[in-house]
């Protein structure tokens, strides 16, 4: 930010603004939301660190090799990746002011997100059915906490997505809705970034171990 040194009428320099100048509504939302995402990033970093420390403590229970089906994880990853690009298309059509198309892309994004959550819950249910519950070992506690927190974020993102679709339906692509859609876009892509860490460090390195 370049704040030029201003001078009063008598010629003395003034190094501060006597009063706050007016800002347009929501001018700082994207920066504020970015800082929220960064703090969320720290939460995930701690969960990754916990998994890194405890990930090898199986307590004579099942190991990643016995539990993880990499084909399923690959399908799940592609669901999230596809939802990222369809959200990108929603943003592009939003910039062109096409309400109906934006809604379609948002709906497709939501379906991919729902598929992701569905596959993840199926995987969890399968694991729990086999006795690999969070109580079984430190590895499984750390696994369910990390992957579950990510899944919870995606679920919240889905609720947010539906809310925004209703908003856009009701009020159109007004300035406030554009801002909200942009925040959700950052949130959604951020969750995809976290998932890169999850499939690499939890699933792929887990199976390699």
């Amino acid at each position: 930010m370049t704040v030029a040194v201003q001078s009063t009428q008598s010629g003395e320099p003034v190094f501060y603004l006597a009063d706050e100048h007016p800002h347009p509504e929501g001018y700082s939302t994207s920066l504020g939301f970015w800082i929220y995402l960064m703090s969320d990033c720290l939460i995930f970093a701690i969960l990754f660190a916990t998994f890194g420390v405890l990930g090898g403590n199986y307590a004579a229970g099942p190991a990643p090799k016995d539990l993880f089906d990499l084909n399923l994880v690959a399908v799940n990853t592609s669901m999230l990746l596809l939802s990222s690009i369809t959200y990108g298309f929603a943003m592009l059509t939003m910039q062109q002011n096409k309400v109906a198309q934006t809604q379609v892309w948002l709906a497709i994004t939501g379906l991919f997100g729902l598929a992701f959550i569905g596959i993840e819950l199926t995987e969890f249910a399968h694991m729990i059915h086999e006795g690999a519950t969070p109580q079984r070992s430190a590895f499984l506690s750390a696994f369910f906490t990390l992957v579950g927190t990510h899944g919870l974020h995606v679920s919240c993102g889905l609720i947010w997505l539906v809310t925004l679709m209703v908003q856009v339906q009701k009020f159109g692509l007004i300035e406030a809705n554009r801002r909200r859609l942009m925040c959700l876009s950052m949130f959604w892509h951020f969750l995809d970034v976290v998932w890169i860490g999850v499939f690499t460090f939890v699933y792929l390195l887990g199976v390699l171990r």
Partner: protein
Amino acid sequence: MSTDTRAAHADDHHHGDSHAHGTFSTYMLGFVLSVVLTAIPFWLVMSGALPSKQITALVIMVFAVVQIVVHMIYFLHMNTASENGWTMMALIFTIVMVVIALSGSLWVMSHLNSNMMPMHEMTGMK
């Protein structure tokens, strides 16, 4: 301060549009890159194409880092100019914190693990 300079000042601070937007081609490029960067590590682990596990682990971690950078640039539109560089400052700060938290935890806990006396020896020490 006259009203004229005030208006000019408000114009200088046109924050609203300082973030970057993607285009169809940048989104597609980002998508294709991430598909490739996802598919290769999965293939490496599932086929066991590389001779040792250590090399495979190292390679897939490098792929993850590259893919994170791709996502940051093509999907999150990170650049040094948006919000006058404050998003980049927040990102750099976060990366520093994440690196300290991750490497510190793993380092300290692995030392604790290897220096700790095993349980069965401890019970015999009464």
